[in-house]
């Protein structure tokens, strides 16, 4: 086995082009488990932790560009105000030790259906910036996940960054686990309000072979909100709307029974999570405008 330590991203891409079978490693929170358990023995590890440009985040046009190697702890500490949904999901990842090392890039690379950040990236219309010696391309999050632990990366590509718009309105993320901390999601749900587009982003995690947008739920809610003029003059949502939104969100899933929960439980819990997160996000939205606060009291 080789241990390759590129110091620039260009160098890393050159290696990946020449040896597409090398396994990139950053925080190691997925790759090292596979090595420790002897589940795989790659011909080489490509250490990305010395590449400065991967560990930076910066505004890029109207978006924020978050380098693939930025650990969760920095998303929580440094971007919590601008990317609240991503920060919420990051807070639920493993333990402090894991959040100090694990990265969104790694979450995307592993493409586990249970990855915590995926539903947020989907609900927030994130773009994944991937690169190779052939160039750079942007993949919408919704097109990135292809199957269980499969993503849209070509063999010579590496994940460079994710691009997300700073939140203009409330976002929420919630997950159901099997104990009070250190949990892999039984199921998870993210919702992001996009008032400027008159729509809501919604996505389910850990309840299908890939994380998925809940399109029917999004469309239903967009219709309800614009029909009632709620974006302009927000009022508390009717229970029937929240409930229907939850049902449609659950229908987006195609869960299985596994060690963490049954398919039926996942569907039920997703409906509850969707209803609750929408309620919290909408309540925040009602509360944010100075003129609106009265009407939502």
């Amino acid at each position, binding site marked *: 086995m080789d241990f390759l330590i590129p110091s620039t991203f260009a160098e890393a891409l050159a290696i990946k082009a020449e040896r597409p079978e090398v396994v990139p490693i950053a925080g190691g*929170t997925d790759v*090292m488990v596979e*090595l420790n358990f002897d589940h795989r023995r790659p011909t080489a590890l490509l250490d990305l932790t010395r590449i400065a440009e991967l560990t930076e985040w910066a505004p890029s046009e109207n978006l924020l560009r978050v380098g693939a190697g930025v650990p969760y702890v920095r998303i929580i500490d440094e971007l919590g105000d601008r990317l609240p949904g991503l920060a919420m999901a990051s807070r639920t990842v493993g333990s*402090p030790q*894991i959040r100090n090392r694990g990265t969104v890039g790694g979450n995307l690379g592993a493409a586990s259906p249970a990855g915590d950040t995926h539903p947020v990236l989907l609900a927030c219309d994130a773009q994944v910036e991937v690169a190779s010696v052939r160039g750079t391309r942007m993949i919408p999050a919704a097109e990135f996940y292809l199957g269980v632990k499969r993503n849209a990366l070509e063999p010579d590509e590496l994940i460079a960054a994710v691009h997300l718009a700073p939140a203009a309105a409330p976002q929420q993320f919630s997950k159901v686990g099997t104990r009070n*901390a250190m949990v892999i999601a039984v199921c998870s749900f993210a919702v992001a309000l996009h008032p400027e587009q008159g729509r809501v982003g919604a996505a389910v995690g850990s309840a299908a072979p890939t994380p998925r947008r809940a399109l029917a739920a999004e469309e239903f809610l967009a219709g309800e909100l614009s029909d009632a003029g709620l974006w302009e003059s927000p009022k508390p949502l009717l229970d029937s709307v929240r409930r229907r939104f939850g049902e449609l969100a659950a229908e987006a899933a195609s869960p299985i029974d596994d060690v963490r929960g049954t398919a039926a439980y996942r569907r039920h819990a997703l409906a509850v999570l969707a209803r609750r997160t929408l309620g919290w996000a909408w309540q925040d939205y009602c509360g944010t405008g100075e003129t609106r606060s009265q009407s939502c009291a």
Partner: protein
Amino acid sequence: MRVNVTINGDQRQADDVWEGESLLYMLRERLGLPGSKNACEQGECGSCTVYLDDVPVCACLVAAGQCQGREVRTVEGLAAGDDLDPVQRSFVEAGAVQCGFCTPGLVVAAHDLLRRVPEPSDPEIREALAGNLCRCTGYEKILDAVRLAATRQASGAEAR
């Protein structure tokens, strides 16, 4: 491969390191530092928690090669000689130690918590130590120990 790394302030060199090897294995089997414990190899139990460039990590999830030129501080490096760190002293006095196998990782994690948050609330302690499994104590005395260490550090700071 060869790895040069600073451990507890000492320049150390490990030879014949396998490229897929973890920092934990290198510490325990090559560098004579078995204080950090190997118990799950998947970042679930926290028994191998060490500082890497001042950031607490699971040593089982760091490739040894990633430590080249970096600084590692293990449980063996917390005390100044016989003089225990306040966190270590509090773990002994509060009865937070039973079989002791999770203790090295817990001590490092608690040490880090008190550097970041000098007076943590109970939920903050539980959250910060969520990645350190203990099968003996029921965790309560670990909370006592962290509270005791926090009080000690606060009064020590006042004294200064």
